[in-house]
């Protein structure tokens, strides 16, 4: 591309944006609104995933030891548990420690249960390397002699894993759908500006302009409009998410949200690139028909 031509393309792109003021505004508005929805959804999805991961990290198996096991057998059990492939950490909790914890949690309800009348059993708290392996590991541990019962909140955990999976897939499908919709909307809006300039394109072809010479100003116009359209939701999301994060930290402190500095820069970059690409592709698609003179 000649530098002279490049300057001409950029100049033409800006002139065209100015000449077609309302259409340019409409294109920017469409990109801005669609990318704002898309960006909000990405933030929502990332946070759901983050929260789900935080919960998953806390999932552990409690394996209760048979009452008849002596200290030696308990140590053998600990060794055989730690040797399981998917297990990351095994922690022994004596029945005395368990009672102290329970008393701390339930207070007056546990009155009367003293160490000499301790109804609890010794147990192991087991963490797996991969939280998704918990049900399988629990089933394996149950088979080990000397383990009386295994508990990991089976229903809750199964539901959690299933629903986070569904949320992730639905989220992905939704995001792809939104990006596609954005592209179609932008292509349509740009098609209106191109239609308005069909005469200009026809004249260009008659005076000997190559197809790329005709295309480039429109592509640059698409890139400029797409980038401006992406800049607006980026700024809105940076501000709004920052505010939402501060509010949540004060009022919903139990919710582990993703920190703004961890995602907003990448999200803005993604939206800007997406805006530029959508603008460029939208321009190219919408002007194909007009080049056949």
């Amino acid at each position, binding site marked *: 591309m000649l530098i002279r031509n490049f300057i*001409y393309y950029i100049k033409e792109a800006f002139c065209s944006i100015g*000449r077609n003021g309302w259409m340019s505004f409409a294109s920017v508005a469409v990109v801005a609104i669609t990318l704002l929805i898309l960006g909000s959804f990405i933030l929502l999805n990332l946070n759901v995933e983050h929260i789900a991961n935080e919960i998953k990290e806390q999932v552990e198996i409690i394996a209760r030891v048979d009452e008849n096991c002596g200290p030696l057998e308990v140590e053998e059990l600990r060794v055989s548990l730690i040797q399981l492939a998917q297990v990351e950490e095994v922690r022994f909790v004596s029945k005395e420690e368990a009672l102290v914890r329970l008393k701390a949690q339930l207070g007056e309800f546990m009155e009367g249960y003293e160490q000499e009348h301790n109804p609890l059993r010794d147990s192991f708290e087991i963490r797996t390397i991969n939280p998704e392996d918990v049900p399988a590991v629990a089933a394996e541990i149950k088979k080990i002699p000397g383990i009386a019962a295994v508990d990991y909140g089976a229903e809750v955990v199964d539901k959690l894993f299933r629903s986070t999976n569904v949320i992730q897939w639905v989220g992905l499908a939704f995001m792809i759908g939104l990006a596609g919709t954005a592209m179609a909307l932008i292509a349509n809006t740009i098609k209106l500006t191109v239609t308005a300039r069909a005469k200009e394109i026809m*004249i260009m072809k*008659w005076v*000997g*302009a*190559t197809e790329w*010479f005709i295309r480039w100003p429109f592509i640059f116009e698409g890139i400029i409009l797409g980038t401006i359209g992406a800049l607006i939701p980026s700024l809105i999301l940076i501000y709004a998410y920052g505010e939402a994060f501060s509010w949540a930290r004060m009022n919903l402190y139990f919710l582990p949200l993703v920190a703004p500095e961890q995602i907003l820069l990448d999200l803005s970059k993604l939206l800007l690139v997406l805006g530029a690409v959508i603008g460029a592709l939208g321009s190219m698609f919408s002007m194909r028909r007009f080049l056949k003179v």
Partner: protein
Amino acid sequence: MIEIQHLNMVYPNGVKALKDINLTIERNEFVFVVGASGAGKSTLIRLIGREFLPTSGNIRVFNKDITRLRRREVPYYRRKIGVVFQDFRLLDNRTVFENVAFAMQVVGASARQIRRQVPEALEMVKLTGKARRKAHELSGGEQQRVCLARAIVNKPSLIIADEPTGNLDPETSREIVELLDAINLRGATVIMATHDKEIVDSMKKRVLTLSAGKIIRDEQRGVYNQDAH
């Protein structure tokens, strides 16, 4: 310069616009293509401009069969010809200067070349004083002169004009044809489709008469023949 052999054109709707046209136009000729509406004048002009392809036959221009041009070669062919339209086809929101310069920008001319050649073209069509006016502010005759300036600014050796006086009054039409004649005198070949009898009769140029897609008369220093209707 132009050699047409066994040219046939049938439109997709079945209309036979041209039937077995055979024709040679020499360098520096001025040719009127006349005939009634639907005789095939515009189709012939548009085929020479390579707007579309004929159903069969060859069109050799500048020693090259333009029916065999690849799509990407067409722009380079069009740079060698100047086109004048009946409806002017100017960019209304741009000035006279910008409309003419536009034809140079698209072929990659430098700003210096544009500054030199556009005033020359405007002087040729007597529009020097109106360079800064917007195209839509001009009269029909002036707009057609801008269209002419745009057609000649890249110094093409062939000018094709499809009914360039169709929307103009007789006096203005006369001015336009005189300008085309002046361009022809400077060395360009001119092919002009028209059904303006007075102009054709007064110019005493070569006249090709088309009727129902066929050439029924080809006369040097001819006149507009009523057989065309």
